[in-house]
């Protein structure tokens, strides 16, 4: 974990809703593993006391990219960053995905929204290629599918309005595909996306007895384990304990997670 100030190398649109921000961060880049995140200080937002967390999307030599969507105050003022501007970054943070796949298992990535970002980084590092299921409300919410294909991955798209891929939730093509494999489906699942999607996947993983590594999105304070803002209930050695998503996570094996009813975080 390091604090590093890096200049903006490039800042481009990705589809209509997302942007890719690439920063020169040699130290953080050289230590980053897929599933980790960076905590970015939005300096134009003078009255902001919190950094903003973003998954690491790509690492290319000294350069580190994130893929983000403008959803609020911080991300909206990030949009004004121009090449050459300096950004202060804390990272790499969190545990990351396992980058080995147990023998005989087949990597299956499941993504919603910005969830493609850490999974893309993972896809570049996994020793075996597999399939990506990616879902969204409409065609414009589906990102990076060409890049995954270019890496040699199969891509399966679902949109709720049917404007791209199958119509419906991403779990539908996923289920169909698992069924098509019959009883000996041995997927190793890696997922990042909205809570509803993650929960649905966890149920399936539990039933199927598969490993599913899911990355949680939780509102964060410090990002380093100091403030206890980002707590998640998990079961460890039969005991329910509280862990910090920023430190022990953001990636958890799905069967350890205790999903709470009425957890206010959507």
């Amino acid at each position, binding site marked *: 974990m390091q*604090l590093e100030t890096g200049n903006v190398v490039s800042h481009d649109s990705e589809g209509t809703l997302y942007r890719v921000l690439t920063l020169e961060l040699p130290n953080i880049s050289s230590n980053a593993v897929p599933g980790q995140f960076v905590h970015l200080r939005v300096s134009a937002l003078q009255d902001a006391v919190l950094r903003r967390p973003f998954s690491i999307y790509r690492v290319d030599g000294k350069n580190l990219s994130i893929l983000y969507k403008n959803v609020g105050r911080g991300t909206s003022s990030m949009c004004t960053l121009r090449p050459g501007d300096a950004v202060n970054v804390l990272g790499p943070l969190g545990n990351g995905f396992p980058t080995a796949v147990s023998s005989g298992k087949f990597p299956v990535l499941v993504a919603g929204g910005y969830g493609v970002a850490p999974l893309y980084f993972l896809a570049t590092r996994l020793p075996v290629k597999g399939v990506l299921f990616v879902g969204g409300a409409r065609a414009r919410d589906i990102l990076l599918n060409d890049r995954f294909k270019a890496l040699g991955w199969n891509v399966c798209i679902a949109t709720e309005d049917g404007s791209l891929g199958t119509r419906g939730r991403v779990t539908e093509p996923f289920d169909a595909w698992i069924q098509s494999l019959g009883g000996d489906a041995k997927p190793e699942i890696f997922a990042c996306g909205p809570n509803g999607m993650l929960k649905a996947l966890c149920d399936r993983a539990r039933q199927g007895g598969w490993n599913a590594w899911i990355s949680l999105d*939780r509102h964060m304070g410090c990002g380093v384990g100091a403030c206890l803002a980002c707590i998640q209930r998990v079961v460890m050695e039969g005991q329910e304990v509280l862990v910090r998503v920023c430190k022990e996570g953001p990636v958890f094996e799905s069967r350890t997670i205790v999903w709470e009813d009425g957890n206010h975080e959507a």
Partner: protein
Amino acid sequence: MKPDLRILLAGVPMKNPVMVASGTFGYGPEYADLVNLNQLGAIVVKGISLEPWKGNRTPRLVEVPGGLINAIGLQNPGVNGFIEKYMPFLRTHDVAVIVNIWGKTAEEYAEVAARFDGVPGVHALEINISCPNIKAGGNAFGTNLDATRLVVSAVRRKTRLPIIPKLAPNVSDIGAFARACEESGADAISLINSFPAMAIDIETRRPILANVTGGLSGPAIHPIAVKLVYEAAKAVKVPLVAIGGITSAREAIEFMIAGASAVAVGTANFTEPLTAIEVIRGLEEYLCRHNIPNVSDLVRSLRL
């Protein structure tokens, strides 16, 4: 001339008067990759209770203009858990360790204090009678003079460690609370804890925090804290540790001029983990520039 930043606070020698505030710096290891702990005046660890405590549901934190509202609810591993897990690490450092403690009753406070008595590496106890996020104890003690006296004197009887009650900001007469602490045996007094506050999501019409209300911290509360420190300094002789909205040496210096012997950096650790280090550097630079040989010369130096 290199100014002397060293202080003796409540009998504890410190390299400088700049600490990190309870609950914003974990138990030490969390920021150790970034911050050289040996450079700090002291580390005040997250609040510790007798037994492990789970704290509140999430969301526990929300950003507001100039600050954040937290309702962590004092989650902690309990006295034993803390001593086992974190004291070995802290003891490897050359920095004063102040343990922030809390309880649901005066007896619990006293019992926690007793457990820390004689634990190697623990330099002082900060008594949190002002947490806005728990039902029993906390702010309810810190806004009641009798309860304040009760807790502080109960703790006083059970420990030889220096004790530093931490005051609540939501009182009309902070001087009275400072005096109550002094009279009950406090060696120093710290102030302020976060300010009771609330944020509502207007789309869902629900409180944003699972705990409904929380405590406001950050730059927003600094001018309020300066006034409270100034009032407390008029009321008591024991040294004060000022907390609230420090983001740079400027705010820390304001606090010292108003009457604080030391300061603690809280929320700013999240924004910029090196804040405390920068405050130390800035304070030194300021003392040089103003030809002030000793940092204590700054304390209570307001010109009226």
